[in-house]
């Protein structure tokens, strides 16, 4: 077994653990608990990832060398980064699309109406901006990014993901817009 396959297999092991717990737990969660539990499940997967990596290394010491502590740490971190990228991919491109994509929800409403179609009014009576705002606020309050005092909504703890998205989007726009 090569070092490459140890890193990738332990990352994959972490992802499988992540998916297992994710499918087990998420069926019982309300919208407001989703973001918090995405992080919890991510940490559970990370523990499996690190444990898997260390047990591989334990039995295959000759690949790194018995006393090369730095290399062991470096490859462990690498495995963790690959695991994180895999989770990121799953959350954003599979679960995120299912859970919060407006287009997918509209398509599902049309699908549920088959073999008939839906008029715009019928669609909006089933799914509309009010529903979108309520579920988003529920999630944001649940994750602490927004707080609610009973009357008004306030910005909560630093919404890092949204700030990073804004910053990166601005930078990309600046570069791609023609002078």
């Amino acid at each position, binding site marked *: 077994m090569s070092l490459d396959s140890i890193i990738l297999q332990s990352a994959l092991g972490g992802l499988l653990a992540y998916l297992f717990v994710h499918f087990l737990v998420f069926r019982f969660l309300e919208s407001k608990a989703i973001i918090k539990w995405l992080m919890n499940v991510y940490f559970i997967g990370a523990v499996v990832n690190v444990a898997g990596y260390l047990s591989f290394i334990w039995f295959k010491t000759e690949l790194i060398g018995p006393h090369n502590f730095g290399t062991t740490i470096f490859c462990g971190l690498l495995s963790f980064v690959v695991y994180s990228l895999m989770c990121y991919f799953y959350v954003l491109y599979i679960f995120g699309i299912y859970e*919060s994509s407006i287009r997918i929800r509209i398509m599902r409403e049309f699908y549920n109406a088959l073999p008939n179609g839906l008029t715009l009014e019928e669609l909006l009576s089933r799914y509309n901006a009010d529903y979108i705002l309520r579920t988003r606020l529920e999630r944001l309050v649940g994750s602490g990014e927004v707080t609610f005092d009973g009357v008004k909504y306030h910005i909560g703890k630093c919404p890092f993901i949204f700030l990073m998205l804004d910053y990166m989007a601005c930078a990309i726009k600046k570069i791609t817009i023609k002078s």
Partner: protein
Amino acid sequence: MLYLFFSALFFSFTIFTHLFWCRFKKGEELHITSFVVISLIFLLGYFATARFLIAGQDDLTGIWVLPLEMTAAVFYIFCIPFFLVFYYSTTIDSPSRRTIALLREKGTLTYEELSREITDDKFIMTRLNPLVEFGYAQFDGKYFRLSPRAIFSCRVIKVYQKLLGRPLGG
């Protein structure tokens, strides 16, 4: 380490090439396909470098020449969707992001004030029209219906929903 270095270097080339490609293309639309094509070309570049340049470095030792060719390639491949999220967000506004932006701008807002900004026109119609435009839904003047390929996508999503056990998202 060298493999990772070249993987990151080639991915940086991908980003810069694509950003400049967008700069000189007409229109404001997203150029996703071109990004994927450019990244695959540079991925080939990485593999060529890995095979012919790094693999022959016998004078380097230790962490620099750890045999991590595939790990670095996987790292590169997963960086593609990582970057695309930021690229999408230049044109697609999400309601959560909009809500956070409004709260950051105004400080505090009531539900009614927020609902004046999160409207059907801004968040439903802007998604519905492209569905028709790109052939996922058909509109006969009164009714919207799914096209066959969208029906297939919905079936796949329904299987995922059964596995996940969650209500409809959105």
